[in-house]
């Protein structure tokens, strides 16, 4: 029979829209407006899961996000999502769901044997057992435990879904669309305030959809529909169903996750960052259970959930239902069931003096408890007071309601205990701008919730209270006498269904000294995982209080932290994955480089050509050696656009540049470039580069590629904070210019072919370190700098970036008969090591100017950043390692970056460590490996040999200490 547990009438599902879905491969149907849980129940699928540790049969326990049992895997293949609570999944046509955490079928799970071993699997068992042999823990025991226990499994494939992020701004954020939330939104909406009403359910209305309570004399859900219709008519109100606020962060920012379930590039979920001036938290309350013997069988549910399934989804949770309660609210379950024509087996009230009237003919046991239950895969009987068995297939348990205080605690607010409702309510410091309303604030009746929502909006927004009348509703009976635990139960009594934590586990933890609620949580796992103990925490605290002889307020709660509800990692990543994991910076010659088959490398965010392999070259070294030789013997071109470029202007620009560099810049003439060494305040080298003086008040500073942003930030700090009176202005020009190094003895000849007349490139007219503005290629504006990183005669030619692609092509064409060769960062690095130029490996934040052999460059006549602290004793110690060159004694041997220098015959220890190799390469010019490194007393030890020990690669080589300038130490080539 189709949907045998669907009630013949009533409910808020759309019976005209039948939806097909599957559970464990079986095709079944539900209605639009169902959750997966309600549709499963309608089809009689009460047993849907196996428990975490003992693999016990479990059924649907709740009707909301608090669900601890019904965790299913939704979807197939890569799109499969494990650990999804069936109670919050909106039924969709074609949905596939599978149970999880079983070996074999759900019904025949051979790991159910764990249940027989339960005496050995108590709280913290893995801390006490599996101690021998020690080596087995990681290799055998832990994998076995992890395999046997747990929840669902990820597919292991890349998530095919798309996730998005977004930003919202509002005057008033209303969290929850129950009676309090709707009332708050209505008041603020009518006042013209920008209102954002978010609701985690796919249908707004909260408990009004699940109860038969009336508002203004009509069913509550009708008032919901009318109110929503009015709110939707306001341009200033936005309603977001399927959206969970999971965290309250600083500055009024709230994180929210919207389920969109889009396909074809549309997002599955959107992570919203909501900026709200005010917040009304109307998140309602969550019902809790009572702890009694074998209270985990399928068919045992929260009483409020039973009402939800009957009233909202028109589903009978069972054929014969019993009720176990300690409060008046639970009694409404009996009346709702009777109204729906569902047989009531009995009402068991822990209170002897409750005066509630049962539906006609229903047996009532007052002052009684349930001590045991029976039924293998479904509840069959309950035992009341250890005496009479009562036949029933469903038990509704009403243990009281816990206000959903979670979000109120994200700024370290601690909830306070209210005896009258036997629950924690928001307390301490709430997130700024937050007001709590309705059941979330302990207003557990309908009329109180409506009043509370109204007052919250009026108070938060300072608006006219008369804008919306409070509708009439009843303050239904809600008296409670706390009752937590049936002490006489013989069977195991579950406190936390999701983590298989029993009352005995709590007592054991207490017995072993874990008296703090925080320690209890860690030791037993109570309150962890997807439900975060929404139904388990308060009973667990009550049991701990009982065991320690303290009160519940004295015992306290654990700290609530975001997220309130599970958030997929994919949602946190949003679109920042794959290609968009982080932005890539491309140089103006990127397309051209790709056409040449360049091998690209990430340098910071930039993609740069590492080398340009040619046909027939079988190894990168072969390519790089060719590129170096081409530059040294002819001419090569390298894209250096990635170097940071900072445009500095102002009447005080000279003072500024002179103050941020350690070497003198005050007398740099217009039209000249100078190498600059920049120190940090602490005297260490920060960065280096060249700075060109383009005009009396105009400089262009270059930085290393990696440090471009940090140097700019440093300069802005100096400008704005240290010397605010200076007339100086900075702007990044890195992206503005495409810049190419044209290097090699034939570089002048090549440039002469593209530089427009009458610009004179002769050595006398445009000497080493000159700079100028000019035009090239018949009128293209350009800047030319005669600077060299390779040690050869070299220039850097810059054009506005739009001409960058055309320029590289023009240079390659113009120099084809000269053998012009494109070279990448690897050849660039080889040539700078051959020349002895320090770079990133040497400027690692731990080296001083003296360490780099540049102490004579540092000015003693001026004040500059780092000028004071560079004299610290630790930095002036003459035994500090200094830069030197290294070459293998056996010229055929390899040397490696990272090797440490150890004297002959000495052990490889920290005490004997004399320094390190910071850069190494094969020099095609010299025909053997060379390196740069730092070693103590370097300048006094030229010609000495030491061992370069590379512990990582288990490699050792004898190296000779030499000058770092392997080629052209006098600089004749670059001045040619």
């Amino acid at each position, binding site marked *: 029979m189709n949907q045998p547990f669907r009630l013949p009438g009533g409910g808020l599902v759309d019976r005209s829209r039948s939806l097909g879905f599957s559970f464990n491969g079986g095709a079944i149907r539900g209605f639009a407006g169902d959750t997966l849980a309600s549709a499963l129940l309608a089809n009689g699928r009460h047993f849907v899961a196996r428990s975490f540790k003992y693999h016990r049969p479990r059924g649907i326990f709740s009707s909301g996000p608090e669900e601890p049992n019904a965790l299913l895997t939704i979807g197939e293949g890569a799109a499969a999502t494990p650990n999804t609570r069936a109670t919050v999944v909106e039924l969709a046509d074609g949905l596939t769901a599978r149970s999880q955490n079983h070996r074999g079928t759900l019904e025949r799970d051979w790991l159910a044997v764990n249940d027989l071993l339960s005496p050995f699997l108590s709280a913290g068992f893995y801390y006490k057992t599996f101690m021998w042999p020690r080596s087995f823990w990681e290799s055998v025991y832990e994998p076995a435990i992890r395999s046997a226990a747990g929840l669902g499994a990820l597919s292991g494939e890349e998530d095919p879904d798309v996730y998005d992020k977004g930003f919202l701004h509002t005057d008033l954020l209303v969290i929850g669309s129950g009676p309090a939330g709707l009332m708050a939104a209505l008041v603020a909406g009518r006042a013209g305030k920008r209102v954002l009403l978010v609701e985690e359910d796919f249908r707004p209305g909260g408990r009004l959809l699940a109860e038969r309570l009336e508002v203004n004399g009509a069913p509550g859900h009708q008032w919901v529909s009318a109110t929503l219709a009015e709110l939707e008519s306001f341009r200033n109100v936005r309603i977001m169903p399927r959206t969970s606020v999971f965290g309250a962060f600083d500055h009024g920012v709230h994180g929210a996750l919207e389920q969109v379930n889009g396909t074809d590039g549309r*997002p599955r979920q959107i992570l919203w960052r909501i900026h709200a001036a005010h917040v009304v938290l109307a998140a309602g309350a969550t019902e809790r259970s009572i702890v009694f013997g074998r209270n985990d069988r399928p068919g045992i549910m929260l009483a409020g959930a039973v009402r939800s399934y009957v009233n909202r989804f028109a589903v009978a949770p069972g054929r014969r239902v019993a009720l176990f309660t300690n409060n008046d609210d639970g009694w409404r379950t009996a009346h709702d069931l009777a109204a729906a024509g569902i047989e009531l087996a009995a009402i068991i009230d822990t209170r002897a003096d409750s005066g509630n009237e049962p539906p006609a003919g229903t047996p009532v046991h007052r002052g009684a408890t349930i001590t045991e239950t029976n039924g293998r895969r479904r509840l069959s009987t309950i035992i009341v007071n250890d005496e009479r068995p009562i036949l029933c297939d469903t038990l509704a348990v009403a243990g009281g309601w816990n206000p959903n205080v979670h979000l109120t605690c994200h700024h370290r607010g601690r909830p306070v205990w209210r005896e009258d409702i036997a629950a924690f309510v928001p307390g301490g410091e709430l997130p700024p701008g937050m007001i709590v309303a309705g059941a979330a604030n302990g207003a557990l009746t309908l009329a109180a919730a409506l009043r509370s929502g109204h007052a919250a909006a009026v108070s938060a927004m300072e608006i006219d209270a008369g804008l919306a009348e409070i509708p009439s509703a009843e303050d239904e009976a809600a008296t409670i006498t706390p009752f937590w635990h049936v002490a006489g139960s013989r069977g195991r009594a579950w406190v936390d269904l999701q983590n298989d934590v029993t009352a005995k586990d709590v007592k054991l933890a207490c017995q072993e000294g874990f008296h703090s609620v925080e320690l209890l949580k860690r030791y037993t796992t109570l309150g962890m995982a997807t439900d975060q103990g929404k139904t388990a925490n308060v009973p667990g605290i009550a049991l701990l209080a009982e065991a320690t002889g303290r009160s519940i307020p004295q015992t306290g709660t654990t700290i609530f932290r975001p997220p309130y509800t599970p958030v997929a990692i994919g949602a946190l990543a949003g679109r920042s994955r794959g290609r968009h994991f982080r932005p890539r910076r491309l140089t103006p010659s990127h397309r051209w480089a790709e056409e040449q088959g360049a091998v690209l490398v990430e340098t910071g965010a930039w993609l740069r050509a590492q080398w340009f392999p040619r046909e027939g070259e079988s190894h990168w070294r072969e390519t790089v050696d060719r590129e170096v030789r081409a530059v040294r013997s002819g001419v090569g071109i390298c894209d250096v656009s990635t170097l940071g470029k900072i*445009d500095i202007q102002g009447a005080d620009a000279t003072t500024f540049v002179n103050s941020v560099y350690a070497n003198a810049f005050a007398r740099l003439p217009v039209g000249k470039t100078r190498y600059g060494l920049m120190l940090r305040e602490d005297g260490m080298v920060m960065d280096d580069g060249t700075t060109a003086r383009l005009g009396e008040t105009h400089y262009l500073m270059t930085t290393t590629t990696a440090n471009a942003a940090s140097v700019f930030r440093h300069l802005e700090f100096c400008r704005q904070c240290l010397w605010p009176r200076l007339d100086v202005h900075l*702007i990044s020009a890195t992206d503005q210019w495409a810049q190419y190094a044209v290097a090699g003895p034939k570089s002048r000849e090549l440039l002469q072919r593209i530089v427009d007349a009458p610009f004179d490139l002769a050595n006398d007219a445009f000497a080493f370190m000159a700079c100028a503005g000019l035009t090239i290629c018949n009128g293209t504006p350009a800047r030319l700098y005669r600077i060299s990183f390779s040690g050869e005669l070299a220039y850097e030619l810059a054009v506005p970036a739009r001409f960058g692609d055309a320029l590289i092509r023009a240079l390659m064409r113009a120099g084809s008969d000269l053998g012009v060769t494109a070279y990448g960062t690897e050849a660039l690095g080889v040539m700078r090591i051959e020349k002895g130029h320090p770079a990133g490996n040497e400027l690692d934040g731990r080296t001083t100017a003296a360490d780099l052999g540049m102490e004579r460059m540092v000015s003693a006549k001026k004040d500059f950043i780092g000028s004071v602290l560079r004299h610290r004793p630790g930095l002036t110690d003459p035994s500090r390692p200094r830069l030197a060159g290294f070459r293998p004694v056996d010229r055929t041997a390899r040397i490696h970056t990272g090797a440490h220098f150890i004297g002959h015959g000495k052990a490889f220890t920290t005490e004997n460590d004399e320094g390190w190799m910071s850069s190494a390469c094969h020099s095609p010019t010299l025909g053997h490996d060379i390196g740069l490194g730092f070693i103590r007393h370097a300048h006094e030890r030229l010609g000495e040999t030491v061992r370069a020990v590379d512990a990582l690669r288990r490699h050792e080589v004898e190296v000779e200490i030499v000058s770092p300038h392997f080629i052209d130490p006098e600089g004749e080539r670059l001045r040619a």
Partner: protein
Amino acid sequence: MLEATAVIGEPAIRADGIDCREITDLAIHALATRTPPAHWPAPGTWCDHEDGRLARIGADQCFMLSRGGGAIPAADGSYVSDQSDSWAIIGLSGERISVLLERLSMIDLETAPARLASRTVMHHIPVILLRLAPQDLLLLTPRSTAGDFWCALGEQIRAMA
């Protein structure tokens, strides 16, 4: 003369209520001075200027957007830096740009000045946003990351169609 290359060089993206295209005929010059002239707009806004549009993107800094073919505009004593090649300029228009923008930027267009000129971040990439009209925006984004930005923008727009 060398041939200029467009930063993005892709056809416009048009989807349900959103039009997105690269703008290649605007020059950008940064103007900076310690004593901003009276005709500069308030920080975070832009105003019309005889040379184009003047956007105040800092206490002592403006961007002049002009169709002057790259010529340096009158500077009122300010220091001028050509930024025309530093930025890709993208025009976004249509009735759904506010819906698009809430997926891209934390700027609150509803409370922002009508002539907004604001720095922001979209897809981890810096952007300067100018609201030319209620349904007409100009985005300036660094040239080197413009390709990724355009790609991400396109995916976002198509996903909203």
